[in-house]
């Protein structure tokens, strides 16, 4: 399967910059997800790779070959969109065999190909049905089979699961990854859903305002994000502002706004530097000492309760307690909170940056 390389890609629409100096390499057989908020330029990149859009600057290479003069239909690409675009008057089989048939593939061969992909998406038994007789999840599987039956070796998925119900979406994530991996396809998937990105990809590329912010495996991106924006966008997190009190080989101590001292794994920051501690709700625990806070809301979220508390530092702190725990928390309760020192990450704090980093729209 091909590898893909984008070199210094810039896309401008008049004064609007949709992508700027993007450099991205996707390995043969790799499943890469571009994640980012609406308008970050992720769809633009996919369209440039597909050849639907012509970049203002930069080059796209597929399998080492410059795509400058290669039209979309010669790029061996399978493309699946958010809006399921099946031919309504063709049945499932006819939809899936459409690609091979327009390429003049003979009947026994296009039948074999269509069977193969319909079997992969587990829809062989529905090949005589029309799109309107299928539910959303099945329709999207047909789109996928159709995209692949053209012999695509590079799969581009633009929000393929966004139009589906939450539950169906979760089931299809599995299917998507299984399918792509079993065929060994190189895949680029675009989404605004961080959970989806984490569960399907080998690697996540996080974008914002037309630029790549960072790129790493899902696990590293969640556990050790390099920027406050990544920490906040990839999952929920608590952000505590403070100053470095002391640091040595064993630990770094941060003084929060109310004087509370928090110890975290050692960092390179120097005494007195303004910092932000990021710690996910699942790594904040009620304790006897620690950050003092007052509970402002308690919400049942299934297997646990999500508790929001306002700390004496004025920071808002969210944490979870299992639904089986005996203590009942209610609004107005005093709590002391401690954080898992290895899971907390310390970032440099510059004026105004926190507000900017946590802006979602």
């Amino acid at each position, binding site marked *: 399967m091909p590898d893909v390389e984008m070199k210094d890609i810039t896309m401008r629409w008049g004064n609007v910059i949709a992508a700027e100096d993007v450099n991205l390499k996707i390995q043969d057989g790799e499943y890469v997800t571009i994640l980012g908020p609406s308008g970050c330029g992720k769809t633009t990149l996919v369209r440039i790779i597909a050849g639907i859009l012509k970049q203002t600057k930069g080059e796209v290479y597929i399998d080492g070959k410059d795509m400058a003069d290669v039209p979309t239909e010669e790029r061996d690409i399978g493309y699946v969109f958010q809006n399921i675009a099946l031919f309504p008057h063709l049945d499932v089989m006819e939809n899936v065999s459409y690609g091979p048939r327009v390429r003049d593939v003979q009947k026994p061969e296009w039948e074999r190909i269509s069977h193969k992909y319909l079997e992969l998406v587990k829809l062989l038994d529905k090949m005589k049905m029309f799109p309107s007789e299928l539910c959303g999840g099945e329709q999207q599987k047909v789109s996928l089979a159709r995209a692949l039956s053209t012999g695509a070796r590079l799969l581009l998925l633009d929000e393929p699961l966004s139009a589906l119900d939450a539950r169906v979406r979760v089931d299809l994530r599995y299917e998507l990854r299984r399918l792509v991996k079993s065929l060994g396809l190189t895949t680029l998937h675009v989404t605004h859903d961080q959970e989806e990105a984490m569960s399907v990809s080998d690697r996540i590329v996080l974008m914002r305002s037309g630029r790549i912010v960072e790129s790493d495996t899902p*696990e590293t991106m969640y556990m050790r994000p390099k920027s406050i924006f990544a920490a906040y966008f990839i*999952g929920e997190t608590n952000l505590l502002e403070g100053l470095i009190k002391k640091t040595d080989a064993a630990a770094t101590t941060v003084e929060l706004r109310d004087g509370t001292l928090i110890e975290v794994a050692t960092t390179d920051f120097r005494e007195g530097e303004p910092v932000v501690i990021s710690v996910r709700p699942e790594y904040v625990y009620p304790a006897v000492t620690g950050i003092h806070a007052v509970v402002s809301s308690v919400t049942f979220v299934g297997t646990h309760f999500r508790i929001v508390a306002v700390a004496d530092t004025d920071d808002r702190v969210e944490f979870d307690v299992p639904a089986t725990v005996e203590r009942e928390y209610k609004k107005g309760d005093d709590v002391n909170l401690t954080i898992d020192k290895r899971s907390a990450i310390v970032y440099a704090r510059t004026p105004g940056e926190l507000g900017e980093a946590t802006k*979602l729209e």
Partner: protein
Amino acid sequence: MPEIKLEGIRKHYGSIKAADGLEFTVKDGEYLCLLGPTGAGKTTALRIIAGLTEPDSGKVFFDGRDVTDIEPEDRKAVLLSQTYSLFPHMTVAENVLFGPNIRNWPEEVRVKTLANMLDLVRLTRRSDAYPKELSGGMQQRTALARALASGAEVLLLDEPLRALDARLRISLRYELRSLAKSLGITTIHVTHDQDEALVMADRIAVIRKGKVQQIGTPIEVFERPISPFVANFLGQSNFLQGSVTHVDGMTEVRDEQGRTVAAGTANVEVGERVAVGIKVGNTEITKERYGYLQGIVERTLFEGRNIFVDVMVAGLGRFSSRIPAGRSREFSVGDKVSIKWSPEKATVFRLKDRSLDDELRVE
């Protein structure tokens, strides 16, 4: 604000039963989520309450008053669609004042209403912007302000967060709920997203095939589901079928392969055919030899805070377990594991002659 009551609502489109004896009550000032898969009839229910769709039979009451034949504009119930339907050629302010303007409210009332509404939805500084210049979240707040400005007492929200980015959606859940609660307005929110419903609702009505399957607080519907469908739709469950072998505080069930599992108290008899449902979050996997079931780890899926571990159990199929991501190193594909749970976290459902697959079908 009005209490809303639906009684025996039926609405058929050909062979499709969008409402099939739909009944529920929403209390004054309550935030109710109608949760169900696509095609369950959620939007039809909203449209019938708004007066935009006429039911084939059944009645709608607002505060005990039959409004079934009352025009939409006289119901003070505003429906907000998924796409917000703002007027594209009007500014935020003009959109918000659309209702007051056609009703010819006095100038000073209009000015005051506009100021209040924009303040409420934090759009004062964007009052001259056009919808296309706004982000999805801002468009949604504009639509909300427009609905409230015309004096809505009942807010009908059709997938209000669907068009927004996943991360933003999570942040806006609290905001939308607290806005509705602070106004004391009666709210019905339609969603297919169980997490959204759990977090936002005072009560959840789970809808399937035009009927309410269960209505209750988030804790009630999550922890005490009345059907396999509800158990699976909220929080995803693993199921095992078998017959009851012992009833004594706990319930013991044996499957066809002779495996015995324990579940919570249930009103069933020995010999009865049942399904046992356990939420994936309450399904524990361990490398110890002892557990109700044994299987092989088939795949793991990283979700951020949690990982999902799928275990193939011979003769039973896939059992999933959601465990904290911190434990991700404990299991790898191919490992032999045991599956167990706290019996009181497992729910017993009588199957009678129904098939479990039919009970669970989502679409």
